[in-house]
């Protein structure tokens, strides 16, 4: 007979609750998934148009396009939101389908490293073109 799930005898249920992690921060990934989604609505539409214009262009035109301040800033915002949103999505997929503890932990850590590296590489590349590359042409 226990008044709370996990309660045994006189043990305080708070002890069990502590083991489940901190309260009040549980919706943060869910909320960030939505915030990045809202940002990606206009950014991805803009990105489609940018790709359409750039894919068949010659190299100097590509550099010029990326180096335009508005494009450069939007590209950085797009890359950050893209990897953040994607990482949050993949995190949920791993949580849902990978039930082997060591594999799940390994994948979750690898996902964070990968997403961070990807976002960093994208941002650095845009900055490189914006601040130095375009000046050659």
């Amino acid at each position, binding site marked *: 007979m226990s008044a709370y799930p996990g309660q045994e005898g006189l043990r305080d249920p708070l002890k069990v609750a502590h083991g489940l992690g901190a309260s009040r921060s549980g919706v943060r990934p869910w909320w960030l998934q*939505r915030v990045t989604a809202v940002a990606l609505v206009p950014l991805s539409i803009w990105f489609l148009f940018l790709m*359409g214009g750039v894919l068949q262009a010659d190299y100097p035109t590509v550099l010029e396009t*990326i180096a335009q301040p508005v494009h450069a800033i939007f590209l950085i915002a797009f890359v950050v939101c893209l*990897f953040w949103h994607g990482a949050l*999505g993949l995190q949920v*997929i791993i949580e849902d389908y990978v*039930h082997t503890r060591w594999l799940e932990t390994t994948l979750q850590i690898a996902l964070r490293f990968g997403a961070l590296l990807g976002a960093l590489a*994208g941002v650095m*590349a845009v900055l490189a*073109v914006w601040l130095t590359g375009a000046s050659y042409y």
Partner: protein
Amino acid sequence: MPNSRPMSPHLGIYRWRVNMLQSTLHRLTGLFLCLGALLVVWGLIAAATSDAAWSTFAAFCGSWIGLVLLFLWTWSLLFHLCNGIQHLVRDAGRNYGPATRDRTHDPVYWSTGWAITAISVVLTVLVWVLLLVHVSGGAA
């Protein structure tokens, strides 16, 4: 250690509805778009590296495999976008709840799923027609 806890009655007991298609496609397109994110970074790094690196990237995008992948990525993006907007609307609580989910009270609730799928296909075709017109116009 095998999981011996009882499973909830899974997919088999539910009547098929379009939201199942939406949910599955949202996940699959999301997964596929994560691969697309790698292509985006490849393109940006190639642009920052050299003319030759960009040419390699552009050649991949122009190859048959590249074009097929780009077409699938375009549709994935547009489906994920359209369905994501519906997701946001319903996350906000609009048109959500037992009454609106009842087919007899609100048949529109279920048909939006088909509309979203159709719109994403139409938009994909539109984007590629515009792209082809742009490319052929640029070459002429």
